[in-house]
């Protein structure tokens, strides 16, 4: 019975989109998107509790057994991701009404909600599936809907940002398919679990290494791994505020999940981290990402672009955890999926409120001058989320960085610890730029409009509170992440 729930988790948003396009009414579209988001959250929580008790859940679609039919497989790692994606959707969707109404032309709003449902279905489908090619199909569903959502942005630059993201995203998806093709030619199957078994006795490893390279670069493009991140700043800066909030907290995180799924459940980790320098490459790229991206963020004028560059740096922390390749490193990486998702979600939702009140043009660091007087709660929420970005003790960001440092120390990598601290300092600089402008700079004369609309403010503050909550009570975030990390490491070693 629970298996059907895993199916409905993806099929509900999938069916909601055509219904929305059939009804062609923005109010119905928003309602459908909200109901679907909350149902998905309920299902995700139910699945997570089931998987916690009964272990991995497998569901044969069409009642065809695994390698012949397509199988849905929900294990502790995917359950953790399902909850993360649905939680963000549930928080963002209900409050998207005013923001989408302000930024998307009236006759196109219902299509924006249809694309939102498709993107949600694509992301959930990527997490739940146990089939390599089905994963590609759902990568395309979430990707195409994301390109449209970005292209609906208020400014004309959104079109160029969507185009650039489409090019790099499609090249990434094509490299992924080439990688899966090589694995298919070596094993004859597309089911991930079955493929893992048959890969163990492959004599000639050259195609396996080539497949590893293609999948890593392909998925690296999708998750904005350091040298492949050029599309992210424009895409997040130009998209409508609610879209940025949703994407920043979920899109790249699901791509990290796909990378982890292949690294630990398909390829043989001993060969991967033992003979190949994968660990070193990831640590090098991650440290470069955190330092360079944070440095660029310090010099950014546009607030959304500043936090988009900060996202590139924070993804560096996630991949750093993978590179360290021990239990606490991996746990830090998984926990940061949640911690960063909440932090960045809070920031972009609050910025969405500011954009709604004062127009998208004022989202520059100078444009936020005197925000504390005009929108006290929004400014306060931004400060909390900013502290979590830096990793001040008591916030979610600190938990991740603390465990990353633990992981690095276990491996004796002093310079990695130094890099983490240095990048946190740089992060403090760019967060301070925003805080200083909001609190210390005088508000421009005549700007006396009130706080962001209650709905959006509630979402932003809820996320900000979660940043602090997960800073103290880490049972779910670190507990779930540790269980998933041990499952990955035990499952494959």
């Amino acid at each position, binding site marked *: 019975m629970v298996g059907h729930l895993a199916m409905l988790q993806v099929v509900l948003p999938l*069916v909601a989109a055509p219904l929305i*396009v*059939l009804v*062609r009414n923005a109010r119905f579209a928003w309602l459908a998107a909200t109901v679907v988001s909350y149902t998905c959250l309920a299902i995700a929580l139910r699945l997570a509790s089931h998987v916690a008790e009964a272990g991995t859940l497998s569901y044969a679609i*069409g*009642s065809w057994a695994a390698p012949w039919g397509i199988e849905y497989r929900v294990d502790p790692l995917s359950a953790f991701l399902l909850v993360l994606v649905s939680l963000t959707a549930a928080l963002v969707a209900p409050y998207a009404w005013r923001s989408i109404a302000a930024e998307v032309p009236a006759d*196109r709003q219902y299509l924006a909600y249809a694309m939102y449902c498709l993107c949600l279905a694509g992301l959930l489908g990527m997490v739940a599936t146990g089939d390599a090619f089905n994963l590609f199909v759902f990568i395309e569903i979430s990707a195409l809907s994301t390109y449209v959502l970005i292209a609906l942005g208020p400014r004309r630059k959104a079109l160029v940002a969507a185009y650039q993201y489409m090019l790099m995203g499609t090249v990434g998806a094509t490299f992924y398919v080439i990688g899966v093709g090589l694995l298919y030619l070596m094993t004859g199957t597309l089911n991930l679990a079955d493929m893992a078994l048959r890969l163990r006795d492959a004599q000639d490893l050259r195609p396996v290494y080539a497949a590893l390279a293609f999948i890593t670069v392909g998925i690296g493009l999708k998750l904005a791994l350091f040298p492949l991140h050029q599309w992210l700043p424009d895409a997040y800066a130009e998209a409508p505020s609610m879209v940025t909030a949703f994407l920043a907290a979920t899109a790249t995180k699901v791509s990290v999940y796909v990378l982890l799924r292949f690294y630990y459940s398909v390829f043989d980790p001993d060969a991967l981290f033992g003979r190949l320098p994968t660990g070193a490459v990831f640590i090098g790229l991650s440290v470069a990402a955190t330092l360079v991206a944070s440095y660029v963020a310090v010099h950014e004028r546009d607030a959304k672009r500043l936090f988009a560059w900060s996202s590139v740096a924070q993804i560096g922390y996630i991949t750093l955890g993978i590179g360290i390749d021990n239990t606490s490193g991996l746990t830090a990486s998984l926990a940061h999926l949640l911690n960063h998702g909440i932090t960045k979600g809070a920031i972009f939702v609050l910025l969405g409120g500011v954009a709604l009140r004062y127009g998208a043009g004022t989202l520059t660091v100078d444009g936020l001058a005197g925000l504390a007087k005009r929108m006290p709660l929004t400014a306060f929420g931004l400060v909390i989320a900013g502290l979590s970005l830096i990793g001040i003790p008591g916030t979610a960001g600190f938990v991740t960085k603390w465990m990353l440092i633990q992981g690095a120390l276990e491996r004796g990598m002093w310079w990695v610890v130094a890099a983490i601290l240095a990048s946190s300092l740089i992060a403090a600089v760019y967060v301070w730029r925003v805080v200083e402008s909001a609190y210390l700079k005088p508000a421009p004369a005549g700007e006396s409009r009130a706080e962001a609309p209650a709905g959006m403010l509630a979402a932003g503050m809820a996320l900000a509170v979660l940043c602090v909550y997960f800073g103290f009570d880490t049972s779910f975030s670190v507990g779930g992440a540790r269980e998933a990390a041990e499952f990955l490491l035990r499952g494959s070693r």
Partner: protein
Amino acid sequence: MSNDLILRVIAKLLMPYMLVFALYVQFHGDFGPGGGFQAGVIAAAAVVFYAIIFGLPAGRRLVPDRVVEAMLAIGVLLYAGVGLAGLALGGNFLDYFVLDTSPVAGQLRGIFWVEAGVGLTVAGVMLKLFAMFAGRAGADKGADRNGEGG
């Protein structure tokens, strides 16, 4: 293009055969090459052929925009509907065995309706793509510069 008599007569003659061939490809998919995707494109090609010869407004009268947008959505709903029917009848999602008395008949029924859904969606999308791009031709004159020409 639209006032050339020969083309108009030929178009009128060819249209039915193109549509019949599209239906043939749709239903012959079980026994030979064919299926929803190819059939959808061929059916859409027939209507596009008509719209090119008799002009876009005539094409829009033949298949109005609302119908095309409805086809787009109904195809996917039909496909997912077959899947949910399998769920409702006690099988897994997209389980065709439970759709009919005997398993094989259930499979045939499931495959038929699923391919019909695919054909509907693909035909709808191809028609909508043509209408959007062709309709856009007039936009160059009307479109303003600040990206609001949507």
